[in-house]
């Protein structure tokens, strides 16, 4: 039997609300299949399953808010074996290659023994008995997910209604408004933590884009409009390739040490129409061709704004790129998303006056060329400015060799 648990969709997520089950007991599921929708403070996220098997039991009803790490369902393994495999718990919520990113933290995960009886504090149990509150329906927020006095009091004052099978459309608007408010809180928590804990250092570098833009224009001229690749995609690819070469910018600072990620999953800062932002991942950026990245980015932005991201996208980013060029600013100095260790910022690509090579060999002149200001905000615990400078200039060099980006 395998337990399918509430994944941590980012380091600032403590709990999630089960919005929708897309499977039922007896259904066969396969690895990567979207099996549920979970409402976080940021978005409704489609949750993938990481095992082949058969759904045995759904443990958490729709509408219930549970802590990260709480078992949501049990699965029977594909070979029909019903033996418990405790070790199989982690992979269920963790995508290959980035296991540590989403392993529920011990402090917020339930105790090891799976399927233990519900923890209810002695005082809460007494209060529930006196108020005739059914404890099974009371979500727990205390230590180890226990039901506390406060939980019982909330349950006592909440309108008695069975959790809806699916959230009705009318409820979605209210949900979105509440989500926007909660998102501010989430962003506040993550960014406060970042500025409190991460000793940022910042580097800036102006990159001349003439070569790459000329190449891209020529490339796009041969294609229909909907097949064209945006310059932003080239920037993403360059960051992905550079992060692959400079591993200390691609990973996590966790438990007092740096943990390099095995893949490069670039988080893309996407502002949402209702306010706030998310930075979901495009997976394996160095391995993807530009066309594929363009498709991925388009899809990701659309789904982020529709509020339907996938669990792996929320929790996998190993480095983040923020691009405020569209808003017209020249330079952006970013705040690192914990527990990542680096963030690359791009401002507006624009024609700027630069010293360029002159017409005569060895001479210099003044020219107007298109440049973009790239910045690196990096965690000084994980890397030093010397390597940061090399990383940032590597992005520049890659953009000067567009053929490398195409591969």
């Amino acid at each position, binding site marked *: 039997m395998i337990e399918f648990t509430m994944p*941590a969709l980012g380091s600032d997520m403590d709990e999630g609300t089960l919005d929708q089950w897309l499977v039922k007991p007896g259904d066969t599921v396969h690895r990567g299949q979207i099996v549920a929708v979970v409402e976080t403070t940021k978005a409704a996220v489609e949750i993938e399953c990481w095992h082949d098997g058969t759904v045995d039991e759904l443990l958490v009803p729709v509408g219930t808010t549970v802590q990260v790490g709480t078992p949501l369902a049990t699965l029977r393994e594909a070979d029909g074996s019903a033996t418990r495999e405790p070790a199989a718990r982690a992979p269920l919520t963790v995508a290959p290659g980035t296991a540590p990113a989403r392993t529920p933290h011990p402090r917020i995960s339930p105790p090891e023994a799976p399927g233990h009886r519900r923890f209810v504090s*002695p*005082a809460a149990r007494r209060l529930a008995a006196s108020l005739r509150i059914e404890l099974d329906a009371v979500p727990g927020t*205390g*230590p180890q997910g226990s039901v506390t006095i406060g939980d019982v009091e909330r349950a006592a004052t909440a309108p008695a209604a069975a959790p809806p099978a699916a959230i009705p459309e009318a409820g979605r608007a209210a949900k979105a408004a509440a989500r926007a408010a909660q998102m501010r809180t989430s962003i506040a928590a993550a960014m406060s933590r970042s500025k409190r804990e991460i000793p940022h250092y910042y580097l800036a570098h102006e990159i001349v884009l003439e070569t790459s833009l000329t190449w891209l224009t020529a490339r796009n001229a041969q294609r229909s409009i909907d097949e064209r690749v945006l310059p932003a995609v080239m920037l993403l690819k360059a960051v992905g390739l550079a992060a692959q070469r400079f591993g200390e910018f691609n990973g996590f600072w966790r438990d007092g040490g740096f943990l390099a990620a095995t893949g490069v999953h670039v988080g893309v800062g996407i502002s949402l129409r209702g306010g706030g932002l998310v930075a979901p991942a495009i997976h394996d950026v160095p391995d993807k061709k530009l066309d594929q990245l363009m498709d991925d980015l388009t899809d990701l932005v659309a789904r982020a704004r529709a509020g339907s991201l996938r669990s792996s996208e929320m929790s996998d980013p190993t480095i983040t790129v923020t691009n405020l060029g569209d808003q017209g600013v020249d330079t952006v100095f970013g705040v690192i998303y*914990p527990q990542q260790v680096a963030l690359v910022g791009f401002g507006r690509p624009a024609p700027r006056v630069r010293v360029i090579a002159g017409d005569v060999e060895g001479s210099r002149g003044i020219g107007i060329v298109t440049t973009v200001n790239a910045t690196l905000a990096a965690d000084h615990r994980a890397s030093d400015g010397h390597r940061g400078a090399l990383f940032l200039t590597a992005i520049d060099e890659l953009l000067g060799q567009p053929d490398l980006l195409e591969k």
Partner: protein
Amino acid sequence: MKTTYRTAVHDAIRDALRDDDRVVLMGEDVGRYGGTYAASKDLLAEFGPDRVRDTPLSELGFVGVGIGAALGGLRPIVEVMTVNFSLLALDQLVNTAAALRHMSGGQFSVPLVVRMATGAGRQLAAQHSHSLEPWYAHIPGITVVAPATVEDAYGMLGPALADPDPVVIFEHVQLYNTSSDTSADGDQLTPTSISGAAVRRPGTDATLITYGGSLGKALDAANELALAGIDCEVIDLRVLRPLDDATIFESVRKTHRAVVVDEAWRSGSLAAEVTARIMEGAFYDLDAPIARVCSAEVPIPYAKHLEDAALPQTAGIVAAVHGLFGEPFGDRP
């Protein structure tokens, strides 16, 4: 006027010597040197060698002398330099002082006061820094007190001397330099009591239970937690034996959560005892498991950073309280 804890201890001894000629002070370096922690400075000059007596480095001997003097009608104050050294005198205290009333069918009592320094934080390393007062709190027949404030540093000695049975006073080494705003005249410090705990800070959300040198850290933690919206009640046990269950239970019944802060080691500690009593007496009022913040189970290190790391600190107390609310804190991902 600011009065230090050291001055309060000194003045309490001086006033006791002045008020009652049966009171004598003895111990290592209490006379000519004025006390290792200067608690008996100039008392030899004022009261003479009959009443302020330097002893050899022989805890077993001079604590025994103190017991004999008490049995003979005096009111001795015996100073033992640190609790670590008091182990040499455990036989006198446990087998004689604590047991004589019982063994004599009430015919004899031992009105002895033993003062000793306890605790870490001054880089005195593994033979001068331990908190062994829970061992004394284990023994029936003696009263064990731990003054944590300037007022108690002065105020507990008088009642201790008036008690017909042995009283052991633990003065945490980190407290001697602490001070309190007392009235314009330091002499106006008055006797307090050697029974009962004190609520040092009222609160509604969680109870911090502590004593001695950890009281300041607990109060600091309470102030920090107040900024996070958690209103902590802080209880100073004051008397480690007999424990004041009523004050503890009353607080836990109100707050439903408790953290016990004890500089001794966790295993078999006073923190363990307090925790167990809350389980016995207020289990159905608990809304979260009781948490303990104690010293790391190592001999207290000499190096400053290691000593700091080994001891309960404010940040650890704050984290423990957050834990009671199911809030991951500090090392959360």
